[in-house]
């Protein structure tokens, strides 16, 4: 995408096109480019090619500003996945369960989506693929009750990682956000000294700037520790990652790159930045 031999104006025009078409958002793009222009001015960087390599370095530095949490600790770890409808939470829960089980952890899955048709059945298939047990209740049960039971079971059976899958919900649906806050409160009430709790938003890379609105909104309702960006095997480039890191200070914990159980990989900032310009 970055052609060689270009003028400064050509560079900045191409740059805005690349970032906006990558779903960084036009407002965020302009503020990032303005910061870069200021830096380029101060460092007296001139010419299309020099600006190009300086900008790549600038973005690499930006994305390395926050580091993804390591899941683990002396006690039990609870990882709750939340996000809007269809973003990939259930699939991601399955993938996470599998990789944690493979690295020797004792994992328990909790089907806290008691609303959507066949949600628990879907997670049940994933629990089989991951080779880990699942706590579920009947459709229409209180999601908080599922989580309560799951944490009791995890404590009793000495699981060291509980992965909670929640129902899809939009951040502008007040009653659903309140339900999420209620689930969150129940988790926190069941934690003991030494336990760790991670709340992660699952964002769809094929979404536009609403993905950032989702992250910002949910972060205000339930403080997030990280994001997982799915469907990066699509033609979308996941530009939401830039404002996520720059504006919200949220790290990207993993990225989803397919529908198979192993298609969840660590986020590598440098590789991702380079992918924007491929």
């Amino acid at each position, binding site marked *: 995408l970055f052609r060689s031999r270009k003028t400064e104006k050509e560079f900045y025009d191409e740059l805005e096109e690349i970032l906006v078409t990558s779903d960084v958002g036009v407002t965020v793009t302009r503020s990032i480019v303005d910061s870069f222009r200021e830096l380029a001015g101060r460092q007296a960087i001139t010419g299309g090619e020099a600006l190009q390599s300086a900008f790549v370095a600038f973005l690499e530095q930006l994305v390395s500003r926050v580091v993804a949490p390591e899941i683990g600790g002396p006690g039990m770890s609870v990882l709750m996945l939340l996000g809007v409808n269809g973003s990939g939470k259930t699939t991601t829960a399955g993938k996470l369960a599998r990789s944690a089980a493979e690295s020797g952890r004792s994992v328990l899955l909790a089907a806290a989506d008691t609303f*959507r048709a066949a949600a628990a059945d879907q997670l049940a298939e994933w629990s089989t693929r991951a080779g880990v047990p699942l706590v579920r209740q009947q459709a229409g049960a209180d999601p908080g009750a599922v989580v309560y039971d799951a944490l009791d079971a995890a404590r009793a059976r000495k699981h060291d990682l509980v992965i909670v899958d929640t129902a899809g919900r939009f951040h502008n649906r007040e009653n659903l956000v309140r339900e999420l806050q209620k689930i969150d409160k129940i988790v926190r009430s069941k934690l003991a000294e030494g336990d760790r709790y991670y709340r992660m938003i699952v964002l769809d890379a094929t979404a536009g700037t609403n993905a950032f609105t989702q992250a910002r909104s949910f972060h205000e309702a339930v403080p997030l520790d990280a994001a997982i960006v799915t*469907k990066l095997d699509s033609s979308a480039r996941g530009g939401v990652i830039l404002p996520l890191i720059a504006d919200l200070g949220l790290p990207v914990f993993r990225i989803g790159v397919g529908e198979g159980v192993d298609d969840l990989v660590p986020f590598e900032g440098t590789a991702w930045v380079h992918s924007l310009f491929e």
Partner: protein
Amino acid sequence: QLTARISGILGSFGNKKLTESNVRDGMREVRLALLEADVAVKVVDDFIENATAKALGEEILRSVSPTQQFIKVIYDELVRVMGGAGQQFSLRKGKLNILLCGLQGSGKTTTAAKIALMHKKQYRFLLVSADTYRPAAMEQLRILAGQAGVGFFEQGMKLNNPIEIVRKARSFADENGYNGLIIDTAGRMEVDDAMMKEIQQISKLVKFDETFFVADATAGQSIVQTVSAFHAQFNLTGLVLTKFDSDTRGGAALSVKAVTGKPIAWVGTGEKLEDFEIFYPERIASRILG
């Protein structure tokens, strides 16, 4: 707000016409507004070009402010591109075969049941899941079909070949008096050649009266590439936009419409099967403009 920004720019012009210079200034704001609404860059550029041509040569009316007039030109052009006011989508009478396709998680399975619920007085529907990939996809559609009070092709649940499922479902529908067939397919990406080949094969098994691309209203820039590929490989006849109950401005609606030229039939406005409405260009136009 766009109106405030435009009036800040156009302010008070005493000219009889919207001049090229103040139209260009105004269009810069419109371009920004459309990009912020997630309309694809190329679609924005084409829209601005056409809207500019319309805005120039507009005589300034004495009864409205230049800002109101400018906004009206933009709004009217957006409504026109989105399908025009008063245009209503309707399904063919008699026997009806519908194929649903789209990206992963866009809302196809839910939409299959919504379409059936909305039209069950006119057709006896059989819902068919050709999704042999997603865990519990068939169970999901089975439950939703039950909630909608329409038929579901249960035999498909024992089969693991989408082609075979669609063939057997078509015969089953014919033999059992179903005159509405809705085929739900697995989510897929246009960059997945094998899956695009599969949906192409499925599209030839039945004479589909409608092939709908189901798009998430929150979709971003790459939806243009996706829907172009789908449309190029087998003819889409219409579009469904889901998740309009989110707070997205929904620029994806303009993008998919501009790229395919096909009508947007319905919009999804929630998770319940009743949350399904006929598409009105005027509503979406105001929303996109913010």
